[in-house]
C-alpha cells in the first residue's frame, strides 16, 4: 500500500509552498482584502508561469499534463497561503467542466487560455438562496441565448467566461438542465460585484439578457455533468481547506508558544493544549479523507461520489474548527483586523458554502453510502 503522494508530488508541494511564501504573503493578501485590487494579478501571472494553472490540463490543450494528484498538492498550498486569486473557480470548476464535457473546439479555445493565465473562468449555478438542485435552476436558455440572473457567482466580476446552468425543459426532472458557455465580456451580460464574507474571493451577480451562449455537453446532460464537476471540485477544495486548517493550527500553536500569561506560556495550560490537540485531530481526519478523495479523483474510481462527499464534509468541518479556535487561542488579538486570524476564519466559512453547504453534502454522503450498501 502506498497511500501517500509520491516524492515528485511532494517536491512539487515544496516548490509551490516556497513560491507562495514569496509571492503571496499575508501582506499581499491584504491588498485584496482591503479592496485595493479585485484579485492578485501578479500572483495569477506567476502561477501561470509556474505551470500551476494548467497542471492537470493535458499538454495538447496547453497544460502541463501532470494530473490531479499534482493539482491536489498545489490546491493544499493555495489554501495554506489563502491565495487571493480565482483559482478554484477557474481551475476546479470551469476547467473541469470543459475537460468533462467540452468539444474539441471549446477545449482548444479555453484550456490553453486558462493555463497561460489569460482567461479566468467560473461556474454560474446558484440563483439566490439554496443548495445545488436542478429545481432551483430557472435561468432560461432558448434559441442560443440565455435570460435570467445568477448569484452568487464566485469571481464573477473578474471572469472572462462562465459555465452556466440553464433550464431547457420543464419535465421537472434533472434532464431539464443543460450547460452553456458564455463569454462574459460580450453583450447581454451585466455583472455586479457583491460584498461577501471573504473579500479575498469576490462574488458577483450576473444578469443575462439575450446573452449569446453555446451549449457545453449534450442538451439535458447538464445536471449529470454538474454533479461530476461538483464532486471533483469538492476534492480539490478539500485540499485547500486542509491547507488552511494546517496553517490555522500552526498559527495557534506558534502563538501559544510565544504568548506569556500568568507567568507561563499559554501553550502550557491544558485548556489551550487540548484545544490545539483537537484542532490537530480534525485536521488529520480531514487530510486522510482528502487523500482518499484524491485517489478516487485521480483514478476516476467508482468510489469518487462517496469519497468526494466525505472529503468535503471532513475538510469543511476541520477548517471551520481550526480557524475558529485559532482566534480563540489568540484571545483579544485574534479579533483585531491587524492579526491574520480573521482571514482564515472568513475563508473557512465562505468555503464551507461555495459548493453547497455542509447540510447539502451530508445529505449527499448518506444517499451515496446507501447506494453503495444496496449494491
Amino acid at each position: 500500500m502506498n497511500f501517500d503522494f509520491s516524492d515528485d508530488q511532494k517536491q512539487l508541494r515544496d516548490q509551490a509552498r516556497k513560491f507562495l511564501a514569496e509571492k503571496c504573503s499575508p501582506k499581499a493578501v491584504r491588498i485584496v482584502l482591503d479592496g485595493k485590487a479585485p484579485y492578485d494579478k501578479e500572483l495569477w501571472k506567476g502561477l501561470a508561469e509556474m505551470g500551476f494553472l494548467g497542471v492537470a490540463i493535458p499538454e495538447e490543450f496547453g497544460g502541463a499534463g501532470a494530473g490531479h494528484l499534482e493539482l491536489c498538492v498545489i490546491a493544499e498550498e493555495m489554501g495554506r497561503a489563502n491565495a487571493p486569486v480565482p483559482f478554484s473557480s477557474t481551475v476546479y470548476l470551469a476547467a473541469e467542466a470543459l475537460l468533462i464535457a467540452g468539444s474539441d473546439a471549446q477545449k482548444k479555445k479555453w484550456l490553453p487560455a486558462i493555463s497561460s493565465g489569460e482567461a479566468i473562468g467560473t461556474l454560474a449555478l446558484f440563483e439566490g438562496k439554496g443548495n445545488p438542485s436542478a429545481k432551483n435552476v430557472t435561468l432560461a436558455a432558448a434559441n442560443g441565448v440565455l435570460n435570467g440572473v445568477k448569484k452568487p457567482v464566485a469571481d464573477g466580476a473578474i471572469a472572462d467566461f462562465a459555465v452556466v446552468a440553464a433550464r431547457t425543459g420543464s419535465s421537472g426532472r434533472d434532464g431539464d438542465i443543460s450547460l452553456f458557455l458564455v463569454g462574459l465580456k460580450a453583450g447581454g451580460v451585466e455583472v455586479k460585484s457583491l460584498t461577501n464574507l471573504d473579500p479575498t474571493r469576490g462574488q458577483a451577480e450576473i444578469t443575462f439578457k439575450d446573452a449569446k451562449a453555446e451549449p457545453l455537453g449534450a442538451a439535458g446532460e447538464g445536471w449529470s455533468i454538474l454533479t461530476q464537476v461538483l464532486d471533483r471540485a469538492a476534492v480539490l477544495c478539500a485540499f485547500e481547506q486542509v491547507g488552511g486548517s494546517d496553517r490555522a493550527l500552526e498559527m495557534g500553536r506558534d502563538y501559544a508558544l510565544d504568548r506569556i500569561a500568568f507567568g507561563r506560556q499559554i501553550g502550557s495550560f491544558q485548556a489551550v493544549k487540548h484545544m490545539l490537540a483537537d484542532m490537530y485531530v480534525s485536521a488529520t481526519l480531514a487530510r486522510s479523507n482528502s487523500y482518499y478523495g484524491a485517489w478516487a479523483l485521480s483514478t476516476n474510481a467508482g468510489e469518487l461520489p462517496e469519497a468526494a462527499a466525505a472529503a468535503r464534509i471532513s475538510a469543511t468541518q476541520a477548517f471551520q474548527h481550526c480557524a475558529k479556535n485559532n482566534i480563540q487561542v489568540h484571545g483579544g488579538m485574534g479579533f483585531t483586523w491587524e492579526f491574520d486570524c480573521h482571514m482564515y476564519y472568513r475563508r473557512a466559512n465562505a468555503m464551507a458554502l461555495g459548493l453547497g453547504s455542509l447540510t447539502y453534502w451530508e445529505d449527499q454522503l448518506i444517499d451515496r453510502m446507501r447506494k453503495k450498501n444496496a449494491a
Partner: protein
Amino acid sequence: MNFDDTPQEAAFRETARKWVEANAPKELHAELSKSSLGRIKLANHDIVDVGKAWQKKKFEGNWACLHWPKEYGGRDATPIEKVIWQQEEGVYGKLTQPFQIGEGMCGPTVMAWGSEDAKRRHLPKLASGEEIWCQLFSEPSAGSDVAGLRTRAEKKGDNWVVNGQKIWTSGAHYSDYGLLIARTDPNVPKHKGLTMFFLDMKSPGVEVRPIRQANGMQEFNEVYFTDVVIPDSQRLGAVGEGWSVSLTTLMNERMSIGSRLATGVPELFEFCSNLMLEDGLAIDDPAVRSKLASWAVKSSGLKYTSYRAISALSKGERPGPENSIGKLVSGMMLQDIATYAMDLQGAAGALTGTDEETVQGQFQQMLLSSPSMRIAGGTDEILRNIIAERVLGLPGDIRVDKDVPYNKIPTKGR
C-alpha cells in the same frame, strides 16, 4: 497513490493467506465475525483455551509474535509484514486477546531490559502461548499519574519483598507471569524511586480479585501483594530505573497500528436504515442524516489515517505519537453514538432487554461500556497531552511534584 502491495508484500500475503486458510479454526468463524465491544465471549468455548490452541498452532507455523527475532520465537518479520499478517489473520486475531498484553507490552520490555537467560526462558513461551503475561502498573491512587504508585518492594538479601495493590489488571486471573513496577525508594522524587520486576503470578501472597465494573461486567482485576518474594534475578533494568523501563512498555502499547478500533458507525447506519419514526425511516430524516454523516467521516478519516500509517511502515518509517488519535476519536464516538441511537428510540431506549425493539440491547451495552474506552490505555486527556506535547511541540505540564521526595508529596486533596 495506490492500495497495492509491493511484489514482496504480495508474496508474503499469499503465504500468510494460505496458511490461515489451511489452519484456522473455521468452526468459530461465524461467531468471531459478529461485531463486539470489549471481551470476546464464545458460546461453547473458553476464549483462553481456544486462544492457546490457536497461538500454539501459529507458533508451530512460525506466525506467532512474527515481528520478534527468530531466536526468541518470532520470524524477524518487518512491521509491514506484521500488519499484513493481522489483515490475513482477520477475525481469528480476536482469539489472541489473552496474549495481546504479553506480545505487545511485556515481551518487548523483557526483550529490551531482560537478561539473556530471562529472554531465552520466557520469550518463546510467550510466543507459543504457553505463558500468559499481565501488566501490573495502575494502582487505585496512580492512574494517569502512574509514577505516583505506592506498591513497595524492599530488598531482603537476594530477594525483594513486595507489599501493595494493583488495579485494572486485564487477565490477571489466568496469567502465569506479571510485569510489576514498584517503589523501591520513597525518599527520592517519584520517577526516580521505581524499579521493574517480573514475577510468577502463583507466588505465595499474590491475590487476584475481580472488579465488578460500572457496566456490570467483570473483565479486570485487582491484585493484592502481601509479602510476595521476588528474586533479584527477576529485576528488569537497574534499581531506580523502573520509569525508563516502563516507557518501553507504554510506547509499545501505542504502536498497535492497523488494528481497527470500533466506532459504532456501521451499527448506527444499519439501525437508522431500519428504524421507523413517525414520518418514515430514521435515515430519511435530515437531522439524523446530518449526525450520521458527521460520524461517518470521522470513521472513514480514522480508517484512512491508519492506511497512511501503514504506508509509512511500508516505506520503513516508524509511526509516531500521531497515532494516538485513533482511540481518542473512536472512544468519544462510541459514547455519543450510543446516546444518539437510544435517543431515537424515545422512552423505549432505556430498555436493555433482548427483544428486537432494542436490537439486542447493543447500543445500551455500548453506552454502559464506552466510558472505559475513554479511560483505559491513556485517558482522552492524556492522549490530548501527548498530541499537544509530542506532535505539536507545546510545553509539558508544570509538575509541582517533580523535585519533591515521594514521601513528601501530599496524598489527599482535602
